[in-house]
């Protein structure tokens, strides 16, 4: 069974981004970039399925600029077998990405696609569900546990009320939540090995799909700052302030 894992290069989760003064977006100059943490969990899960003998090949794919090759190499160093970069300078949005991924799925014929539930830059939480919708495949979103047996995936999902377990026939789309696994660190020998693994570069035009963005960002602003707070020195003072000043209790 082949597994396809789409991965996105995003601003590292430790960075507090700044909005550009002209309101055109956030400042990405000299900002640390990494693999989207949820995608890292997806790569880890796919590799574990391979280590358990359930998967035969793990293919990672990233869509974006040439710099995404670095992100793909990270996934290869974790243990993925092969990388694909769909290179473009277009602004990609979830629907466009889902269409391109659908074209890749038809080409690669995986039984399972594992995506992160959301990218921590645009926080959309759409691509996996859209891909499943376009392919008309079942979806197991926000997964905190995944088991594959007899052509079916059993997925435990983190939902607002607690947990839900679904059984899906393969092929299927899975999206990862934080508690699915803890991704491994890459080691120097593995990073060296990853340099020799195949990484194909395709252009968007090579795929039979439209990815023109259809949502326009008119402006980006910082959130309203909160007014500065105060320190209280005791529980008594806190209770008094909450009662008399804030009037919330």
């Amino acid at each position, binding site marked *: 069974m082949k597994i396809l894992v789409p991965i996105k290069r995003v601003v590292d989760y430790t960075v*507090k*981004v700044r*909005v550009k003064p002209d309101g055109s977006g*956030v400042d990405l100059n000299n900002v640390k970039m990494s693999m989207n943490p949820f995608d890292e969990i997806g790569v880890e899960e796919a590799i574990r399925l391979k280590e358990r003998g359930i998967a035969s090949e793990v293919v990672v794919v990233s869509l974006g600029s040439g710099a995404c090759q670095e992100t793909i190499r990270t996934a290869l160093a974790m243990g993925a077998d092969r990388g694909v970069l769909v290179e473009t300078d277009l602004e990609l*949005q*979830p*629907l466009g990405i889902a269409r391109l991924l659908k074209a890749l799925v038809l080409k690669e014929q995986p039984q399972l696609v594992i995506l992160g539930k*959301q990218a*921590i*830059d*645009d*926080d*959309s*939480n*759409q691509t996996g*569900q*859209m891909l*499943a*919708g*376009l392919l008309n495949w*079942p*979806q197991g*979103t926000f997964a*905190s546990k995944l088991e594959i047996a007899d052509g079916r995936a*059993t997925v435990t*999902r983190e939902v*607002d*009320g*607690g*947990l*839900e*377990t679904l*059984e*899906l*026939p393969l092929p299927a789309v899975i999206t990862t*939540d934080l*508690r699915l696994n803890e991704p491994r660190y890459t080691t120097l020998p593995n990073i060296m090995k990853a340099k020799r693994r195949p990484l194909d570069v395709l252009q968007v035009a090579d795929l039979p799909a439209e990815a023109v963005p*259809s*949502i*326009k*960002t*008119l402006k*980006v*602003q*910082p*959130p309203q700052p*909160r*007014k500065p*707070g*105060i*320190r*209280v020195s*005791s*529980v008594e003072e*806190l*209770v008094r302030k*909450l009662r008399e000043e*804030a009037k*919330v*209790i």
Partner: protein
Amino acid sequence: MAILVLAEHDNDSLKPSTLHTVTAAKKIEEKIGEAEVHVLVMGEKVEAVAKASAHIDGVSKVFLADAPHLAAQTAEALALQTGQHLNASNYSHILAPATTFGKNLAPRIAAQLDVPQVSGISMILDAHTFVRPIYAGNALATVQCEARGVVVLTVLSTSFDAAGTTDTSAAIEPVNKVVPDTSGVRLVGRQLSSSEKIELTSARVVVSGGRGLQKAENFKLLEDLAAKLHAAVGASRAAVDAGYVPNDYQVGQTGKIVAPDLYIAVGISGAIQHLAGMRDSKVIVAINKDPDAPIFQIADYGLVGDALAILPQLTEQL
């Protein structure tokens, strides 16, 4: 033209998130004029939910798809059923709450219509222009959809008040066709938190604990405080990962977004991912033993000290 709201419910009762979503639908209705707000209820034995939906202020029609295969409310079955309903009627917008229900379902519907989606809107500027937080709420993007095609949105409950209810009831109509689900997806089971628990996203007061509480048993101190304040209990990701509390307690960028009148963060450092879920609370209190913890930067009232000593005192004095 009409605006469609997908009702969130558990087959027995309507979830408050639906009421907030209806308010967003009414805002869009005001912008375009001459539109109606419809609610689509899909599930099994959901008459009570349909009735409750029909009493929401501003709703002019409720459509009901009631069938055994809709009981589990899988995205596959609901997306097909919604698609069928859209074929039969003329909608400009489809709205769902930005809860795990809406997040799971709405993008699948959008993809099947081959239209984009705008996730987690916090403001409506006109029928095609919306504001939404990005980068864990560190930036607010104003985005515009093309005028062609249906607009699919998920709505942040914290940004829109709950719609009221009326004595008069809107009409309830069955959908013109119930479509079978051929996906083969089966619900194995659910492990849900007790329904008596105060719901995090609609509570007036939330008390949240982090890794600073050090072990699961210490959450008892937080629960005692919560009981005194009629508050819901939340947590940081670190507290959930450590197994102190279940996943549905998590507040943050990738958990629940809350905006209560009072949010008390106890033993939480204030990572941006956590702030994303509570920064719009009216009053924020932080209790942390580290005077330099980032949580103090957004707290209205900060108290430096050992949470395990402070919590019982606070509970006693309230």
